[in-house]
Structure formats: C-alpha cells, structure tokens
C-alpha cells in the first residue's frame, strides 16, 4: 500500500477514471505504479490510529468484564446481556443525530471529537465505579460515544480520500481499527497474568490509550470542511437535502442493508453453536472474537480495493456469502478444530467485505452535504436490523434448535443475497458517484 502524506488526493489520483473506475492508474509519466495501488491520505491513517488506540481501550475492558464482575464484584454475570439491547437502541439514535449534526454544522472533526472524548471520560468513571450499576452507566456512556463518533469519522475519511480509492481508504482504516480490537483483549489478559488482581491497571491502561487517541485526533486530524469560509465567503451554501438520503439509490442501499441485516444474527450465536459441539471452541471461547478480528483486519484492505475495482455494492452484497458459509459450517457436523477455524475465517471475511465497504457505498451515493447523515443512516439500519435479527433468532433457536435454525437463516440468506443483488442492479458495479 502506497501511502501519501498529503491530505488531498493528488490531481492524477482524482482524475476522471474510465469506465468502471478501473482506470485511475493513469499515473504521471515516468512514475510507474503497480496496478491496484492507490493512495491513502495521511488523515485516513491518523483516523485509523485513533480508532486503533480507542479499540485497545474499549476491548481490553470488555474482555475482562465477566471475570471482573464475578471475581471482584462477587456478582453472577447472568444479568449482563440484558443491558445490551438498551444501549444498542440508544446508540442507533445517537448515530443518526451525530451524522446529521456533522453535516449541518460542517464540523465533522469536532463532532467525532465529542464522541471519542465521551468514551475517554467514561474510562475515568471505570477507575471509580465499584458496583454493577456504575459499571453499566460507564459502558453505556462508552457506547453512546461510539455512536456519536462513527458517522462523522467516516465522513472525514471520505472527504480526505479520492473517490476512486474510497474502498481502500476504509479498508486501511478498518484494518488499523481491528488491530486495536485484537490487541485489547490480549493486553488485558497479559496484565492479569502479571498482576493477579490487576483490574485497576487494565482500567488505567484503557484510559491512557483513550486519552492518547483523543489527543491525536485533536492535534493531527484536520477539520475537513466543505465550505472554505476564508476562500469563498460569498459562496452559496448548498442545502442539506433529506431526499439524497431517503430517495434514489440510497433508499435501495438502506432497504438492501436492512434486509441483509435482518439475517445477520451475530457472531455470538455462531460461537455458541460451535462451543456447544466442539471442545476446541469451548476451550478457546474467549479468543474466538479475537480470531474473527484478525481475519477481518487481514482482509479489510484487499476487500476495499476489490470494492473500488468491481463495485462497492457488489462486494457488500456478495460479502454476505461469507456469512452464509459461516452459518453452514457452524451447523454442519464437521471436525471441531476445522469448523471453528473456518467459521472464524468466513466471519472475518464477511466483516471485511461489508463494514467499511458499506460506508464507502453510502459515501459514494450521497453528496458531500449529506454524507454524514447518509453513512449514519446506513450504519443505523444495519445495527437495528441486526438487533432485530438477534432477538428473532433467539425465538427460532427456542423452537427449532441450534443447527436447524442456522439452516433456516442460511436458506433465507441465499434468497436475500439474490434479491438485494437485483435491488442494487442500477449501481451494482458502479464505483462512481451517481449523484450530481
């Protein structure tokens, strides 16, 4: 990956690509660049590092939370899953609001800063929280912070990337992000290994990483604005148009993402199916999530590049085949180590093909004025539909049993992937903005 340390894409990078966007390789004469390499701006790298540090911060804590609750607070963890639904709902609402605020205020950096800042402040609370209630409050604040920061950050990534390498940019960002998510739990367990009751040290480390992340964001990420107030004080400001987000291609994206989200039941269930059958999965249960993350980070850049070349919508839709494969492998009576590892690979590939790519797709199909809201809307639809999927699958699990309900969801997913591919046909292979 060639990394440019300019914040603006170079002129030839931003040059008109040819058909299907595969032609931004019209490199300067004399500069020979291998096919497929694109520039990623330093802002994308910086935002990736901020996300990495923030993920180290949050994942280190969440990995040890069950041990902390039972071992230190002396409570059973039975209650824990229940609060999840609550903060997911709050987080979805906050996300749209933050995306909209970022568009309207034209201050994406500072909206993102509030989100990162809130999560960092929540970590201070961890150092003093002693009961389950306080702990719940801290985690909720952390998740609200996450809801706030996501859309403005993704709109900053878009603003500082060439439209033709948007997928690669998001790929780079998600790679760094997931490096953090993989390091976090390992760091936490390592601290516990050194210091038997080192929870306070983990909380302190979590706060330290969060603060450094926020500082890097504050100091080094430019507040890339659409309106350059100094240069064009009289320029008429384009209006924010909800129509861009709610009609035209974006409506299809929201509908398609929602349909697929309804069949995305969450890794937790896949891990549980594996764990119920496989000694290997049971033994490594705490690390299955890390394994998925490692595959995600390894595939995020290739998937992003692929999306730039063959169309973001296409990669997003067919990325769900990875999810399908994970469901089938989890339900099939295969040898345990093989099925566990295959599941992790498929899940990781699925996330790599859909997470950053969806943001790139939403950015591609919205105007700069509506980008934050558009990205937030797409991500919210996914988050909410997955939440519905998780509870719906709970019912299915209840009536049909583990493997059978996996097969049912897998069957529905086959239909959904085909249907959404048809729904996305107008822009399935497009890599250019359809909005003028």
């Amino acid at each position, binding site marked *: 990956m060639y990394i440019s340390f300019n914040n603006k894409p170079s002129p030839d990078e931003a040059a008109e690509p040819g058909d299907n966007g595969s032609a931004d390789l019209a490199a300067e004469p004399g500069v020979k660049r291998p096919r497929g390499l694109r520039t990623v701006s330093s802002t994308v790298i910086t935002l990736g590092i901020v996300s990495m540090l923030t993920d180290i911060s949050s994942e280190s804590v969440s990995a040890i939370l*069950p041990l902390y609750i039972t071992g230190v607070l002396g409570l059973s963890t039975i209650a824990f899953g229940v609060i999840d639904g609550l903060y997911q709902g709050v987080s979805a609402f906050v996300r749209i609001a933050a995306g909209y605020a970022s568009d309207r205020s034209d201050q994406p950096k500072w909206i993102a800063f509030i989100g990162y800042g809130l999560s960092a402040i929540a970590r201070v609370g961890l150092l003093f929280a002693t009961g389950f209630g306080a702990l719940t409050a801290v985690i909720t604040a952390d998740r609200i912070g996450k809801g706030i920061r996501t859309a403005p950050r993704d709109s900053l990534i878009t603003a500082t990337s060439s439209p033709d390498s948007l997928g690669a940019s998001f790929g780079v960002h998600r790679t760094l992000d997931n490096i953090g998510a993989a390091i976090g739990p390992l760091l936490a367990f390592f601290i516990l290994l050194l210091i038997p009751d080192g929870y306070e040290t983990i909380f302190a480390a979590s706060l330290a990483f969060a603060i450094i992340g926020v500082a890097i964001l504050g*100091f080094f990420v430019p507040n890339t604005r659409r309106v350059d107030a100094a240069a064009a004080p009289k320029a008429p400001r384009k209006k924010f148009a909800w129509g861009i987000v709610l009609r035209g291609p974006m409506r299809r994206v929201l509908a398609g993402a929602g349909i697929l989200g309804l069949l995305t039941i969450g890794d937790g269930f896949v891990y549980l199916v594996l764990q119920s059958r496989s000694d290997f999965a049971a033994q490594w249960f705490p690390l299955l999530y890390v394994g998925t993350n490692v595959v995600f980070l390894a595939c995020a850049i290739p998937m992003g590049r692929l999306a730039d070349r063959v169309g973001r919508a296409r990669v997003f839709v067919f990325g769900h085949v990875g999810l399908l494969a994970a469901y089938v492998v989890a339900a099939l009576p295969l040898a345990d180590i093989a099925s566990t590892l295959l599941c992790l690979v498929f899940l990781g590939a699925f996330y790599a093909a859909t997470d950053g790519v969806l943001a790139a797709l939403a950015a591609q199909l919205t105007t700069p004025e509506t980008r934050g809201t558009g990205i937030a809307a797409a991500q919210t639809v996914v988050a909410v539909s997955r939440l519905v999927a998780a509870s719906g699958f709970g019912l299915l699990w209840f009536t049909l049993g583990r493997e059978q309900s996996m097969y049912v969801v897998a069957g529905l997913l086959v239909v959904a992937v085909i249907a959404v591919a048809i729904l996305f046909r107008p822009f399935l292979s497009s890599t250019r903005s359809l909005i003028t």
Partner: protein
Amino acid sequence: MTARLKWTLLIVISVVALGATALIGFFAWQAAQARNTSPSAVDTTAAPVTGDRIVFRNTATGEGYGHIASVPLDNPGAPRSLMDVTCDRVAATNDELACLRTVRGIAPSFVALVLDPSGTEKASWPLAGIPSRTRISADGTLVATTSFVTGHSYATIGFSTETVIRGADGSDHGNLEDFTLTIDGAPFTAVDRNFWGITFADDTTFYATASSGGRMWLVRGDITTRTLTSVAEGVECPSLSPEGTRIAFKHTVSGSGPTVHWQPAVLDLTTGDVTLLPETRNVDDQIEWLDDSTILYGMPRDGVPGDTDVWSLAADGSAAPQVFLEHAWSPSVVRGS
C-alpha cells in the same frame, strides 16, 4: 498551534498517560506481591481442623488469599487452617473437596478439581466458563458444577450456563441439558433452557433450577433415569436442608436482568409454603445450611472489592442476619464423623 508544539504536547500526554499506567501497574504488582507475602489479616494455623467444620474460600488479605480454609463449626472465629490450594468456589465432605478454579493465562481457562483433604488431586476436568456453583453429594460419590459460558461480554446473546454432574473420579454423569425435562406434567423441549445450582438429596436424586423464556422452576432430578421434573415455580439456586424437607433459595423480589433483587427464602417441600427471610440486601449465592434452623450465604463486603463475608440467618425468619465468618466465601458445612 505549530506542528512542533503539537508533537511536543502529544509526546508529553503519551508519556504521562502511559507512565501513570506503568506506575499504577507497578504499585499494583508490588501490592499484590506484598499481599501474597504479608501475614494474613486473620489468625491462621498450620494444624488441620478435623471433626465438624466449615470449609470455605479465605478472602482475608495477605498470605492465603483465595485459598481453601477451614475452622471448627462450633468456633468459627478460631484461627483458620489454610490449604495450599486456591479456588473460586469450594464444596467439601469429610473425605474430599470440590474446587472450581480460574486459571490465568492469555486465554483464561477454568477447571474443576476433586482433592482429598490433604490437597492431593484425585480428578480434574475443564469447565466451559466462569465458576459459579459446586456441590458434593453426601456420600461423596458425585460432584455437580455450574459455570457461566461467557464469550465477549458485548455479545448480544445474554448468557448461558453449563451444569454437569461428574463422579468424584471424574466420570461423566451428564449435562443437565441432555436430561429429559418435564414441566407441570408435560414434556418441555424449548431449546433456550438453562440449568444451574444443583443440590443433592442422595446419590441419585437432586434438585436444581431450570429456566426458559424468563421463567424459572425448581426441578427434581434423577441421575439413573436422566429426568428432571418441575416441583415449584420461581425457585432459584436451591439448597436442600439437612433433614431433607425444605429448600432454601433466592427469591426474586423485584426487577430482572441487571436490576434484579434476590431475597433469601425457604420452601417447605411437603406443604409448598414459602417463608421470605428478613434480609434487605441483594443475595446472590447458593445458600448453605449450617443446621436445620440456620442458613449461611456470602455477601460482598461494602467498599472492599474482592472481599466477602459469610452471614447467617434463622431459617424461620425469626432473627435478623448477622456476620458468621468474616473474610470468607463459598462456605461448606462438613460433619466429621
């Protein structure tokens, strides 16, 4: 702000933040070392306690924190006899100990051990998750364990428990999920059923909690027929009294999930009467019977993370709770004979 100033500030912030973490870590490490090597906050003795006794997890700071300890039943304030064995939960008979332990590591693992009274390992097997409850049958032939299966705590799946019965030699008598469950006379096959908190009546019969769809039942289990039959609803974490006619349990007073409040209660198995006991704090433990008129349970100690006390309460609700054994957890009453 110039680039140079920004970099300087970032470096200062990073050094301070990571330096402070390292310092906290260093002091925590030092404190942990000091705690492990400093004399115990309670009086201890090397002489083993025999006869009627309480076996429990010692939570007094200092040497022996987390270790199995025992004190005479008639004098719980006496110096504790500590074993060189750490456990999260412990159950005991006169001849053996069941010990559930979290093994620290880059991927923490969980294990159940059966030990003889000197601490020699007789059997062990892996647990699926964080240790929660353990019990031994009166004749010492069976060991029951419950563990919480937790993956990533942000996962949206609620929780899952694994409750298994093993022979004291490690032989497998099955996971309760594989037993045939009958609720109110009808077969019950819902897949989201969970089981926890076994209490043995004898070496074939036991009681436990079954739950599904937010409801909970007291079930009577039979190991030979591998069946579970509901006895009463709303009875969680049962504990059979020594004379075998009453069940002490956690009664849900209010709330659910994170806001749940449990109050200790006693169910009379012959009449079905439930007596709520006068304890206003939230009790999250499997109750242990001291004798036919008194129950014991662990409570976290206010403001001291990681420390707990064992409280006693009259089983007929005639008296207020009082501290029975300070700095202790997971009490197990042993009748030595």
